[in-house]
């Protein structure tokens, strides 16, 4: 990365990567592959081969109390470098190494000035729409089963 980039640009780029990562991590591998097929993939190599590992998930008592170790979760990670030098990192829950590699590849392309727009438009945006759609559908299904309880005041004074 160029050292003389303004702080605002840096934050913007970070926010863009973060947003893309949030969408990709929640998408299915097949969907990412499907949308990536619309883009000519640049030359790239695996800087860190996809691998599985465990992370300790920590919680807090009552949401904001003393921290405790909840348990371990399986995580896959990868790092990909494009021939133009951009390095992307991918982390995702579960053992899907290919997904981790694809997320890393997308992360690298999001940073690339030439490919960033195409990835944003053809991969991240449709996946984000689908994700919001899923969330809304689930919320609607949940809302349909909602029961409202009323407390009736009994007895007349």
């Amino acid at each position: 990365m160029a050292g003389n980039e303004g702080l605002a640009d840096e934050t913007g780029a970070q926010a863009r990567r973060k947003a893309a990562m949030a969408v990709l991590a929640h998408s299915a591998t097949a969907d990412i592959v499907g949308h990536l097929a619309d883009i000519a993939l640049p030359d790239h190599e695996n800087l860190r081969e996809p691998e599985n590992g465990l992370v300790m998930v920590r919680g807090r008592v009552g949401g904001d109390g003393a921290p405790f170790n909840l348990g371990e979760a399986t995580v896959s990670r990868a790092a990909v470098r494009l021939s133009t030098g951009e390095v992307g990192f991918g982390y995702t829950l579960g053992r899907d190494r290919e997904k981790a590699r694809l997320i890393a590849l997308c992360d690298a392309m999001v940073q690339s000035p030439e490919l960033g727009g195409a990835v944003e438009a053809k991969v991240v945006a449709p996946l984000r729409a689908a994700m919001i759609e899923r969330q809304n559908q689930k919320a609607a299904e949940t809302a349909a089963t909602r029961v409202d309880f009323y407390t009736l005041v009994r007895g007349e004074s």
Partner: protein
Amino acid sequence: MTTVAELPAGFADKVLSAQSTFRSVMDAMARPGSIQRITSAAGTPLAMMQGVAAIALTLFDHDTPIWLDSKMSATPDVGRWLKFHTSAPVVGDSSIASFALIGDPTNLPALDCFAFGSSEYPDRSTTLILQVASLNDGSPVELQGPGIDGTTTLRASIQPADLFERLSINAVLFPSGIDIVLVHDDGIVAIPRTTRLVRRG
């Protein structure tokens, strides 16, 4: 600034490459003085030989503090590459290091700068990994010890010249002591703490 962009990649096939490298190191330790080849290729930082890089990717992890000599630490790439691929901590105190990477063996510090392990935990010693100029082009030395049938002749260019004199403390310290791995390109020779110099040829 992030300079991951310039770092060489690790093993292409992590599991199999690490297994075959581990096998080579184990064979080298089991047959002191014999030259073993490391077949797995990995990207290497400039100051590092292929064999050293493969050993690093195989044996180093977050539990093994690493000490780098001045030649290795002269290029910051080495430390960063180790950190990225192995997550091993690079320490300044050689006496707590599990491994020491020596790029310039002629200026090897005195051996008592490194950990010898204790009688209870002889495994807590520093393993020295020396990059030497050649493994078959030096003056011959005869070695004996466990893993060697009679004696064996090693023709590595031994640096520093008094390496075996320094290693004589291994006889006194046993079971503690220092293990050494000589590396040139993709060839490795191990001199574990039980190996003794018989004579110079």
